[in-house]
């Protein structure tokens, strides 16, 4: 190993910790992408959550958990709005959520102007019992938010793979019309996935705010690309109908370790990381497509995350 520090558990946790918003969001964006949609607004909802918590707590005088509740309600409504427009007004998801990413980051900024604290400062000084959710280390080693993530992972997994709701998500993604004829309320299913991803954004925003101890409107920044990368790398079909939570989780870990490990092991400067990560993405995706048309044989397929090899075969255009 080029750098044995990389193997220290605390460091592993740190690297996970720093990427947690991406991890959390990609889980529920998987549901959306399985329905055939896409969500490029969730990252802006992270900032909206954070600043709402800060402003509501500091300037509206709400108790901290009341502020968190308010943020959850607001963000869920934002998700519901986009979900509604996509599901019921039949607007392409990419466009609505692109608009949403502008709108909600703009809203976050406007919320920040309601505060007596200038938007550039960030609201800090949160009470300990709030910061707990971002800073407490279970057993002194494992950050508590990893448990929160694990819980979200389990919930997402069960929802998508074990419930009727999850089955409806898959069917809606494959053929919405056929799903409708099967009596599935596809509009409701689609809308609900955007709400779920907004709720995930609210959780991620809360945890990040607690972790950093500061409430800012621009938190979450530009996670979009990482999220989508993780979801698709994890085996979700970008046209919908196939995908797996475990695949997404593994892919997001892989990206995180690359981003954290490469600079550590090979002293690659962070700003150049886009190159190896991009190459990985391109290589995996091409490899998978090649395997799909029978180019590399089954062994390669079996290496890939996602469902078994028999499923990968039919992932054709």
């Amino acid at each position: 190993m080029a750098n044995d520090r990389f193997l220290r558990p605390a460091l592993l946790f740190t690297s996970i910790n720093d990427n947690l918003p991406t991890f959390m969001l990609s889980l529920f964006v998987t549901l959306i992408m399985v329905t055939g949609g896409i969500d490029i607004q969730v990252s802006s909802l992270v900032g909206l959550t954070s600043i709402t918590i800060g402003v509501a707590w500091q300037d509206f005088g709400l108790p901290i958990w009341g502020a968190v509740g308010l943020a959850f309600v607001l963000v869920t409504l934002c998700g519901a709005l986009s979900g509604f427009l996509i599901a019921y007004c039949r607007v392409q998801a990419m466009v609505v959520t692109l608009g949403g990413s502008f709108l909600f980051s703009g809203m976050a900024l406007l919320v920040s102007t309601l505060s007596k604290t200038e938007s550039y400062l960030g609201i800090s000084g949160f009470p300990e019992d709030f910061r707990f959710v971002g800073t407490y280390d279970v057993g002194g080693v494992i950050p508590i938010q990893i448990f929160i993530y694990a819980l979200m992972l389990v919930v997402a997994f069960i929802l998508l793979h074990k419930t009727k709701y999850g089955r409806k998500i898959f069917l809606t993604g494959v053929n919405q019309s056929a799903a409708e004829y099967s009596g599935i309320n596809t509009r409701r299913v689609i809308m609900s996935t955007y709400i779920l991803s907004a709720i995930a954004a609210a959780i991620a925003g809360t945890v990040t705010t607690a972790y950093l101890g500061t409430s800012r409107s621009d938190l979450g920044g530009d996670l979009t690309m990482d999220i989508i990368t993780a979801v698709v790398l994890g085996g979700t079909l970008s046209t919908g109908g196939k995908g797996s939570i475990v695949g997404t989780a593994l892919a997001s870990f892989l990206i995180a370790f690359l981003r954290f490990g490469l600079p550590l092991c090979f002293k690659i400067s962070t700003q150049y990381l886009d190159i190896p990560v991009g190459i990985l993405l391109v290589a995996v995706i091409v490899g998978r497509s090649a395997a799909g048309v029978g180019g590399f044989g089954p062994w390669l397929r079996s290496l890939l995350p996602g469902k078994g090899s028999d499923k990968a075969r039919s992932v054709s255009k």
Partner: protein
Amino acid sequence: GGGGGDAEEPAGDDAAEGGSVEGLTVAFIPKVTGNAFFESANDGAQEYAGKWGMTVDYIGDAEASVTAQVSVINQAVANGADAICISTVDASGVSDALKEAAAAGVVVATWDSDANPEDRTLMVSQGTPDILADMLIEMSVAGLEQRGIDPANDPVTYVWHYSQATVTDQNSWYEAAQAKIAEQYPNWENVHENYYSNQDAELAITTGEAILDAFPEIDLIICNDSTALPGQLQAAENRGLTQDDITITGFASPQSVKAYCENGTIYNWGLWDCAVQGAMGCYCAAYIAAGNTVKVGDTISIPEIGDVTVEANDSIAEGVETAEENNGVVLLPERLIFTSENMNDYNF
């Protein structure tokens, strides 16, 4: 100039106790990579580091976000840096990460944009918001005067154009300058809330043109952002305006604005020697990491650059305590105002 000269104690004593910076590694963390300001600072730091025999690792993220920066800090610690010299995106956001770094035995120093004073040792500051606000006003006044406008009595309309409402330093200069203008030049009228161009060069031009079209009579545009200033100048050039029609000033590197000065679009603009600032920051961080202790009033003599004095924290932020030792502020001695006269003397 800021703090210079009068040393009460020769720095040599401390340096002898501790050690030299040779062989140490400093992680030099900008707010964002790919920005002319930070890249110049890195160039400076690398250049001096070579002379001092220490290593400067320039690591940062292409995105100016707290989350990304926290990740970079953790990475620096994991990498085994002896010290960190950082320009923070958000002081409270990186607070925990810096505390953890310190707990892991990594010396934390800051430059350009400060952390919470208790989270770091030394801060190499380009000046307080007040100093920089004064500088912006001074440049504006000079620009207006050379057009024959009396800044003290003539009605002056102006507006601000910089990067974002969420960046710390630019907003703090804006706040300070607004207060001073209201006090010193009540005849100046800010015609609109600030314009932001998100460090997007094309947006800077579009916004710049819109400002000029929507307020054709405007006298002064202050662009305290290194992308907004050239963008605004290009917009003025596109509209055929020169330094005799409108005063545009702000902060940007001499290279990026030189052409607009040559063709008469801008009269003056400013910056500080960020190359030296970066180098100083890294040196101070390494200096303490080498085992030296400094107190307020001590002098650190930086080879090739000169002697600097450690001042109390409240010299840049009011009412902030300063710890017994290894805590304080070093002011960058020199801020620069560029005009056609001197702009060719600098190559950053």
